[in-house]
């Protein structure tokens, strides 16, 4: 019986590195998307919606639904299910459209 996905496929990953999520250090394995690294820590939400302020995270997992948007290294609206986690990435929960800096 395999207890984890990594055990199932006999994964021998390269060394993990760290990304930052809302000020917290999160490990990521080389090749994992940002969304996958967050799921691995049981983090499921990293956006709040524009109208209701409701939490959202990855839904379709293949870049179609755009629910998994977050602010990555200061750039808003990044599809975290497609974006590979890079060492030192800073991921911030995106509030609404993520363009509060443009408000007048």
């Amino acid at each position, binding site marked *: 019986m*395999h*207890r*984890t*996905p*990594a*055990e*199932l*496929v*006999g*994964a*021998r*990953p*390269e060394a993990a590195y760290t990304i930052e999520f809302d000020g917290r250090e999160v490990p990521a*394995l*080389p*090749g*994992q*998307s940002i*969304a*996958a*690294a967050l*799921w*691995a820590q*049981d983090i*499921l*939400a990293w956006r709040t*919606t*524009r*109208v*209701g302020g*409701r*939490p*959202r*995270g*990855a*839904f*379709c*997992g*293949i*870049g*179609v*639904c*755009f*629910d998994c*948007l977050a602010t990555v290294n200061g*750039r808003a609206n990044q599809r975290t*299910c497609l974006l*590979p986690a890079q060492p030192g990435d800073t991921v911030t929960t995106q509030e609404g459209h993520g363009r509060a800096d443009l408000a007048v």
Partner: protein
Amino acid sequence: MPTSPSDHPNRPEAGERAVSEVYDLAVVGAGPAGLAAAVTAAGLGLRCALLDAGPRPGGQYYRHPAPGLGAVHPERLHHGWAAFAALSSRLKVHTAAGRITYLTGHQVWTAERGEIWRLHATLGPEVGAHAVVRARTVLLATGAYERQLPFPGWTLPGVVTAGGAQAMLKSGLVLPGRRVVVAGSGPLLLAAASSLVSAGATVPAVVEATSYLHYAKGLPTLAANPAKLAEGAGHGATLLRHGVRLRRSSAVVEAHGTERVTAVTVARLDRDWRPVPGSERRIACDALAVGHGLLPQIELATELGARTRETPDGSVALAVDSGMRTSLAGLWAAGETCGVGGADLALAEGELAARVIAGRPVPPALRARRERRRAFAELMAAAHRPGPAWTEWLRPDTDVCRCEEVPAARIREAVEELGAGDARTVKLLTRAGMGWCQGRMCGPAVACLSGDDRPRADSRPLACPVPLAQLAGPEPS
């Protein structure tokens, strides 16, 4: 008008090709259909470009971990991995020999027809990150995405698509939770549940809306597809071994929780998918993987006016002839774009299309395999067609459009009080379908709620978001 390499018996030699940079064939999508098409065409002497949005070949079906994850046995998360391994190594050989130009990270957002087709691709957010690929013929192998039907609580974190759970597991080796209910309709549910339990999740139930009895109407088709039956039986055996219960004629009619899903309510359904009062029961879970079949991704062709057909599950697919030609000269299609039918069918159609494009005969065995698999796909589609009463799962405040947060009540108001009779009018009145995903998630639901029972292709002039700077800037050479 010469539209295929078969009209050019004297193709230019290698030296001339390098100068012209016009490919004999451009294949859009490196999943099963596109891969099979590209390696077959290259093997028959065509110079091919293979464009794909992803970083590695395989599409969604053969999605697999990046090399950094060091997966020694990626095949344990796959059915038919050997076929993919064979295609991959042929792709490597053809790429090394210059017969295939494999363009990863190229998402095609529009196609221009002509004697020489022009495919416009975006490579990322930077200003100059775009490309134009020119080719005499184009094969569309852009696959499918999942059909969703909304229900109360479906926007909670922890509620993910069944295909999404598969994709994140296959590529990132992660799970959305430890206790995952799998629900919806279609064969993907069994595959997803089987992967999830093999990878260590507990699956308290697989909840399938249909009774599966419809399959019995197609016994000859079933008997002609023993491989498909074996695939289903394989998933069934895995689920049985892990004690996973299949609840037929049932649906998740609500997901509970505030910040994330903590439980679901499952109800029995009548034959129209109407919940049977009093049949509800609650199942605790920390994730729900849900989907109601797949929808062909065909906007690149439909924006050009390619003819479509309605499939037995109520989706819209490209209409093709026995040689996989669409109604547009020079444009072929294969796999899910022609109606969802799985990887085996896609492999057969990709190979078949490539042979026709190259002007070669199609072996009768290949044609027969394609026809058997296509018949199976149509049977499967008919069995999993959503029942019309699924809309009774909705409450007035259930968001139907996830992007624009448009609840069912506003859509019903647009239909019942403002006179909207189709999805487009509902969109103009309520913004449902106007958001980031361009109606891919809510489209079928909105069409159904608007009383428009004639499925039609969604209009999406741009197949994916393209930075304004790329549209405004000079065209790449």
